[in-house]
């Protein structure tokens, strides 16, 4: 009975929130007017390393057409990973032809459009949020997209030999000063798109991400992709992500939509 009163008190005392889309940013440095100071220096963990923890969203650097910006801004690199590179991505001939074909059909065969995972490149560009949880030997990236996880091991293990290819591959990392250097291999060979254009990734790929928390509010990743099957040379792109100091992850279960199929049949 006492417990019931306590619960009732808590229910009345706590502000009603329908969801955790706006939670107090208690651990964020503040400006004199009380707003979050996202230009403050990056925080550090107890062992002195930069702390990458937080809820992050991809860049929203999409150019606006003359008739105004779209309601939902995305990253240019979500659409075209080669955006910002003088000559775009250095496709092998077959890859260039494939991208042309995929672009012509408005990306309708994009695996993410059919609820398949996006892979680690699009983890940095897909317009859903990620949460980084950091320990000295393991960095976990929780993604609301696919309600999924990525593990990056810092415990000294080597990359696996001849691994079972996966959507996210296998990732190990070490610190180079204040930069986390992540090396990944072991990707599926045919069904990972790097962008909405349809730039491919193959099982020959190695990806190096140099991740740095530039300041409190910005994470910058220099990503070098070496994939001789699909590209004539390695290329490097720079991807920015921004802290969402008051946000919490919300499940994004893409197949919910497929579950609505029986309703269409029954009504």
């Amino acid at each position, binding site marked *: 009975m006492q417990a019931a009163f306590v619960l009732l008190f808590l229910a009345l005392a706590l502000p009603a929130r*329908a*969801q955790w*889309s*706006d939670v107090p940013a208690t651990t964020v440095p503040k400006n004199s007017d009380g707003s979050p100071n996202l230009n403050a220096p990056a925080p550090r963990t107890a062992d002195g390393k930069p702390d990458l923890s937080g809820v992050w969203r991809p860049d929203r650097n*999409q*150019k*606006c*057409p003359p008739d105004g910006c*779209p*309601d*939902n801004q*995305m990253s*240019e690199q979500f*659409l*075209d990973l080669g*955006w910002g590179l003088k000559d775009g991505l250095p496709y092998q001939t077959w890859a260039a032809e494939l991208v042309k074909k995929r672009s012509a*059909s*408005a*990306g*309708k065969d*994009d695996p*993410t*459009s*059919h*609820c398949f995972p996006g892979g680690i490149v699009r983890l940095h560009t897909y*317009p*859903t*949020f990620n949460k980084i949880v950091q320990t000295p030997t393991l960095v976990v990236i929780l993604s*609301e997209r696919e309600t999924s996880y990525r593990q990056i091991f810092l415990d000294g293990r080597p990359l696996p030999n001849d691994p079972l290819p996966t959507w996210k591959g296998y990732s190990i990392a070490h610190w180079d000063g204040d930069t986390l250097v992540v090396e990944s291999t072991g990707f599926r060979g045919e069904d990972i798109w790097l962008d*909405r254009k349809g730039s491919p990734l193959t099982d020959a790929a190695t990806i190096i991400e140099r991740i740095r928390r530039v300041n409190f509010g910005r994470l910058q990743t220099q990503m070098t992709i070496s994939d001789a099957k699909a590209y004539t040379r390695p290329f490097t792109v720079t991807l920015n992500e921004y802290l969402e100091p008051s*946000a919490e992850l*919300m*499940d*994004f*279960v*893409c*197949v*919910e*939509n*497929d*579950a*609505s*199929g029986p309703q*269409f*049949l029954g009504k």
Partner: protein
Amino acid sequence: MRWATLAALLVMLHGATAQAHHSFAAEYDGKKPATFTGTVTKVEWTNPHVHFFLDVKDPSGTAAQWEFTMGAVNGLFRRGWTKELLKPGDTVTVDGYLARDGSHLANARVVTLRDGRKMSGGTMADEPAN
């Protein structure tokens, strides 16, 4: 008969799958804007897209059902949407874009709620700006 049912089932399942998270341009025509006013009959707060249904009356008074899609629940709730804002029985106006296939389906760009407030449906432009 059994085969006909199966074929219909497959067509409908394909239709449902095609509505899964996709490029705007693959399903809607940005050059075909349209405005609808009607009564909400159902709202599905689902990912990857929120769907809702309106009974829209033509000038003769005949009602037709239209389906509208918005962005993902995550993005919409972060932009101020709540489940209370759109409920069966509400009369709302939708400015959006028609589906390419000519069906009673549209992308809801702006929804004018029962109290007159205008809310963005989170339309994405997924083709690089030229």
